[in-house]
């Protein structure tokens, strides 16, 4: 496709999104005055605004573009992603959100210290917040860079990263949490509009969701009526698939290209590979559900509600808002497979990953409708990187300004000093994240998101879950479990990705030299041991239980160190807020944000 000409509609609509974001940032900066506004938006965000803001923050670049691309290239197996993102939020609601809110800890490090009376544990937790935060910002940045170079062909990758990084850093530094709440709320509706309107138009032209799915036939199925019925606007039911595209059977049926990759590489028969695919599916589910519950920027939002009842109502609305959204990206993937199969010939951001941006051009690249719809999806993509990055930046900045500065470096800091520190920290962290973002052009969005989830699932989730429900936890147990699980997961995903990079470079070199690629040692090992490959690529199924087990064993071994007032802490975690127990024991919370 030739995109040497810039489409004015795409440029204008994306530009408007950026300008509106900056304008709203300035507007709300005027109302953000106190430290509490900066850290928890004054705890006074109404249910509607907050639900939209949380949803806006939740739906990242991976949700907006990645899921559609994955469904297009992998089919059914990729549907687990949107479902588990939604379920992860439910899991958070069932087990973690209530206790944490009642406890009154503003950040995970607050909780870590408050629950175990250990400033050391706060330090460990802060490092982890920053680590996972940076890990999760990189894919957002990458998405911004690739989208901007799609909108303005010829523009280098780093420009998009710097533009988004600068806009959001400015917003966060000016308005803090309160500033971005409004922005994120509006961005949710931009995203919702951007993902749904083009789909409705495309489905009106190309036939319904079910009809399009029925065009993908598993072998042995009789041809349905839909395929015989030829639409006026198109010649056939769908366009021919290129060589590289997965076959219908593998695409529409469970245990397809994603979950059976390792077994296929090992040369196993379809029958032999099915149990391994099942294992992969379960591990993926665990990683996504537990990982969502462990992402630091999601938890902070529970504190921006005025009270517990409002927090619960907000959560209900968030479930509905994100659930409705997640129905749409797979439809993009499906339509992309049926009507834009040429995307299969490229990989990553030049291939299926850009299906959301590219698909509306089916309606005619030079027609106004096609351009406007394309512009709308590009604007939605921008909203996606910006809102998730704002959320991450606020939580990382909060960790630096509140936990490192306000609690460790200068415990007696006045709210004013903390607010100033918040602004400085926002600029430093934002700059650093932007810099990192410019370095990750070659990595895949979904892959990076997957790594962040795998690490969060094996570290934060066990920590929060066990600390909230088990009285016998000690600081040593909590720290060992969190670090053990996190490091194991990190080691596994690093091993997998380093191996893949070596294999890819080897293949490219062989192709260049015109020789046959001789697989390296790691690739050969994976070929011989598909089970180990799955457990390394998707480690949650054993790292999450390992982390929990470590917590139990070490806590039992250090039983005498159980915090003396553990009972009081459990009471605060579980007794209704209206009994007013919180004040009895967390007293120094009057400062920033409390």
């Amino acid at each position, binding site marked *: 496709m030739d995109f040497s000409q810039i489409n004015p509609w795409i440029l204008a609509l994306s530009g408007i999104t950026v300008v509106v974001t900056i304008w709203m940032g300035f507007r709300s900066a005027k109302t953000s005055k106190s430290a509490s506004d900066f850290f928890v938006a004054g705890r006074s965000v109404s249910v509607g605004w907050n639900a939209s803001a949380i949803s806006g923050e939740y739906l990242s670049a991976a949700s907006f573009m990645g899921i559609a691309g994955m469904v297009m290239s992998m089919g*059914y197996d990729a*549907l*687990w992603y949107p*479902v*588990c993102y*939604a*379920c992860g939020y*439910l899991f958070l*609601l*069932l*087990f973690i959100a*209530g206790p944490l809110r009642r406890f009154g800890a503003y950040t995970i490090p607050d909780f870590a210290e408050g629950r175990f009376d250990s400033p050391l544990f706060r330090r460990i937790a802060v490092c982890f917040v920053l680590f996972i935060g940076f890990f999760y910002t990189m894919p957002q940045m990458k998405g911004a860079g690739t989208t901007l170079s799609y909108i303005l062909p010829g523009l280098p990758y780093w420009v998009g990263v710097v533009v988004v990084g600068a806009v959001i850093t400015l917003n966060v530094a000016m308005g803090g949490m309160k500033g971005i709440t409004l922005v994120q709320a509006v961005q949710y509706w931009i995203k919702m509009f951007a993902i749904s309107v083009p789909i409705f138009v495309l489905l009106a032209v190309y036939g*319904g*969701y*079910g*009809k*399009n*799915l*029925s065009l993908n036939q*598993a072998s042995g*199925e009789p041809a*349905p009526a*839909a395929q015989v019925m030829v639409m006026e606007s198109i010649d056939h039911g769908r366009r021919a698939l290129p060589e590289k595209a997965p076959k219908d059977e593998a695409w*529409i*049926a*469970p*245990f397809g290209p994603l979950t059976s990759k390792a077994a296929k590489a090992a040369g196993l028969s379809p029958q032999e590979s*099915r149990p391994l695919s*099942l294992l992969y*599916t*379960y591990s993926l*589910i665990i990683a996504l*559900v537990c990982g969502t519950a462990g992402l630091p920027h999601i938890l902070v939002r529970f504190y921006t509600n005025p009270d*517990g*009842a409002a927090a*619960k*109502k907000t*959560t*209900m609305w968030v*479930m*509905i808002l994100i*659930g409705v959204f*997640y*129905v749409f990206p*797979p439809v993009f993937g499906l339509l992309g497979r049926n009507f834009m199969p040429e995307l299969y010939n490229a990989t990553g951001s030049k291939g299926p990953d850009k299906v959301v941006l590219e698909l509306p051009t089916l309606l005619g690249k030079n027609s106004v409708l096609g351009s406007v719809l394309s512009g709308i999806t590009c604007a939605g993509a921008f909203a996606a990187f910006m809102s998730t990055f704002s959320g991450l930046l606020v939580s990382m900045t909060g960790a630096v300004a509140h936990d490192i500065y306000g609690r460790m470096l200068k415990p007696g800091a006045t709210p004013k000093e903390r607010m100033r520190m918040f602004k400085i920290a926002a600029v430093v962290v934002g700059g650093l994240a932007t810099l990192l973002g410019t370095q990750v052009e070659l990595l895949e969005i979904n892959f990076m998101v997957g790594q962040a989830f795998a690490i969060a699932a094996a570290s934060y989730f066990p920590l929060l879950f066990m600390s909230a*429900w088990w009285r016998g936890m000690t600081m040593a147990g909590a720290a060992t479990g969190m670090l053990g699980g996190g490091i194991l997961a990190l080691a596994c995903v690093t091993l997998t990705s380093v191996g893949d990079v070596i294999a890819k470079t080897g293949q490219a070199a062989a192709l260049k030299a015109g020789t046959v690629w001789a697989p390296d040692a790691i690739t050969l090992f994976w070929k011989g041991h598909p089970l180990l490959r799955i457990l390394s690529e998707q480690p949650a199924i054993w790292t999450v239980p390992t982390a929990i087990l470590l917590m139990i064993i070490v806590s039992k071994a250090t039983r005498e160190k159980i915090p003396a007032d553990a*009972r*009081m802490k*459990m*009471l605060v975690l*579980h*007794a*209704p*807020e*209206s*009994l007013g*127990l919180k004040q*009895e*024991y967390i*007293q120094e919370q009057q400062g920033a944000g409390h």
Partner: protein
Amino acid sequence: MSQPPPDENNFIHSEEFLRGLMKRQLRLSVSCASAFLLLLFGLPLLNYFAPELMARRIGGFTLSWLVLGVLFFPYVWIIARLFITRSMALEAAEVRLAAEGNKKLS
């Protein structure tokens, strides 16, 4: 601010109250979680053991796709809705229980 040591005679601070509290909350959370985990973990098993059934077409969708791509979301809403109403009722009941318990002791 200095704080008086928790009054052991206070019903809210009793072991009994805390145990009951956590038990009731955990029971609610676990029952809601098992409702959605049943479907979440059951679906791969159905795909594994009953592939023909799950590949059956309903309005163009395979049954498996229909469940995972569309129906799962309303299902999650129902569970969330149930949990929220029940847990709010539970909190109200706890507050009443605490007030009664304190009255009895004093």
